[in-house]
């Protein structure tokens, strides 16, 4: 078993056949987690005792004849999800002593399915940033070049998969926080439709735009994990009661005739030329598999950005207000002004953004009726060095916050599902990602498209030298 590339299905097969025990596999994962921790800061806490206890339970269930979809699969979770008996720090000093009394719904589902949690993953503080720089737990570093950012806020989630520590991690995404680090670290990241996966037991950034989803090496693993994670949850009123499709069974179908929407304005403007070339080659590959290209025009994109800001700031501030009143000084210097700002934004702006959200959803639905998948780059540039504030793109430098989030955050406002997957590398060896977006609850289409692409390409199998 080649640990960095081992898939969930390979692990479950080995555990079910009792060729390997869950305990053996988890020990190997823990060893890798410890080995890379000082250099890359993927974790806020590694939990060997919990992991070994869970692994022993999995081995017992297997001996009792149970079939478990994630038998013995090591996973780790962004440190905003509750893991019983451990601190849920949110990557922040303010929450350092918040001990979880139970597991988040998504975490519990992974454990029930036979997964084994090996730790809590580093993030940009309070999930309100996109670089992974963290003064409390150390800067999360890019496995392909530690002098560069890993992206964020699900920084550790992407690093742990890229380094082959575990094949699955859990992330959250409010503006691109699963997809952007996935792109910068060369892994596959799925943001399901809003409501597809329960948010219960995860600390919120923005209640109406937070999405929970998996980061994996392959789309096939993402399908397996989504089937476990998806479904209604009484603890999350926004979780959907729609039936959960058999995602793994649906990814093998061909994509002949698939309509791929492309929009050059906004999504292909101001790209690093290497990103543009890789994403165009990715599109060409899908067209060679029988898909067809449709030019589309998604309206109201500037309005989408404004509405996203008018929602995320007040929602974040409402959650953090009690802590801001007493512990403002404990927040990181880049986070405090963001959280304070939301306190001063007019309620009317917030409500108007929620009204605009309906209009945008209605207008976009018309466009998405004409396509099956909307294809974009995930980010216009690869991972930048620590400390950068601007991205160098054709047309002049662009603030990093706009460069890294403009292509992903529109789909948080509308709640549309989106998957990021590797589609190339720069000459300097940094991963490049493309994004596929679908109509609500069409994760099967996205996973199938991504899987078919990964059957024909090997970008997702590439591993940083340090991880080999």
């Amino acid at each position: 078993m080649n640990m960095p590339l081992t898939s969930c299905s390979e692990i479950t097969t080995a555990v079910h056949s009792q060729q390997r025990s869950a305990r053996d596999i988890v020990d190997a994962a823990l060893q890798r987690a410890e080995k890379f921790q000082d250099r890359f800061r993927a974790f806020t806490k590694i939990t060997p005792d919990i992991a070994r206890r869970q692994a022993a339970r999995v081995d017992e269930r297997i001996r009792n004849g149970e079939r478990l979809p994630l038998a013995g699969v090591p996973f780790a979770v962004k440190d905003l999800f509750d893991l019983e008996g451990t601190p849920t720090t949110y990557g922040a000093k303010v929450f350092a002593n918040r001990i979880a009394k139970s597991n988040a719904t998504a975490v519990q589902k992974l454990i029930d399915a036979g997964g084994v949690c090996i730790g809590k993953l580093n993030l940009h503080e309070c999930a309100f940033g996109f670089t992974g720089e963290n003064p409390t737990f150390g800067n999360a570093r890019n496995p392909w070049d530690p002098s560069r950012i890993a992206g964020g806020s699900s920084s550790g989630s992407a690093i742990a998969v890229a380094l082959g520590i575990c094949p699955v991690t859990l992330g959250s995404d409010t503006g691109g926080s699963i997809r952007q680090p996935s792109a910068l670290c060369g892994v596959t990241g799925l943001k399901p439709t809003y409501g597809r996966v329960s948010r219960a037991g995860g600390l919120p950034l923005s209640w109406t735009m937070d999405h929970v989803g998996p980061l994996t090496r392959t789309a096939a693993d993402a399908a397996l994990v989504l089937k476990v994670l998806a479904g209604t949850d009484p603890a999350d009123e926004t979780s959907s009661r729609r039936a959960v499709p058999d995602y793994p069974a649906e990814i093998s179908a061909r994509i002949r005739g698939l309509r791929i929407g492309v929009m050059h304005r906004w999504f292909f403007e101001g790209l690093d030329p290497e990103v543009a070339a890789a994403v165009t080659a990715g599109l060409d590959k899908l067209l060679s598999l029988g898909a067809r290209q449709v030019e589309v025009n998604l309206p109201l994109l500037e309005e989408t950005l404004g509405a996203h800001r008018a929602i995320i700031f007040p929602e974040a501030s409402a959650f953090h207000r009690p802590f801001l009143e007493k512990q403002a000084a404990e927040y990181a210097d880049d986070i405090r002004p963001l959280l304070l700002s939301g306190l001063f934004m007019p309620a009317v702006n917030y409500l108007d953004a929620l009204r605009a959200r309906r209009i945008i959803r209605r207008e976009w639905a018309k466009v998405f009726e004409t396509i099956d998948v909307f294809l974009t780059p995930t980010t216009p540039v690869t991972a930048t060095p620590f400390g950068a504030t601007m991205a160098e793109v054709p047309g002049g430098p662009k603030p990093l916050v706009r460069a890294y989030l403009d292509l992903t955050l529109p789909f948080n406002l509308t709640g549309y599902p989106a998957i990021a997957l590797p589609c190339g590398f720069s000459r300097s060896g940094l991963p490049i990602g493309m994004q596929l977006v679908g109509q609500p609850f069409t994760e099967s289409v996205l996973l199938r498209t991504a899987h078919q692409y990964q059957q024909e390409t090997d970008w997702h199998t590439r591993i940083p030298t340090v991880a080999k």
Partner: protein
Amino acid sequence: MPDTRPITTATIESMATQFLGLTISPANAGATADMLNALSADMQALRALPLGDVEPATTFAAAEGQP
């Protein structure tokens, strides 16, 4: 043309006290004012969008667990 006078530190300090019951240091008030001035520019397009009689997309339900 809209009034483009920037939000000031003093405005933030007095709003913090009067609306939020929050004491905010001058440094934090200054950083907050800077952030709000930047955010304001991002919301120009949103302000111009005709919203008509569209209701906000809230998720409140009168009964817990209501479908």
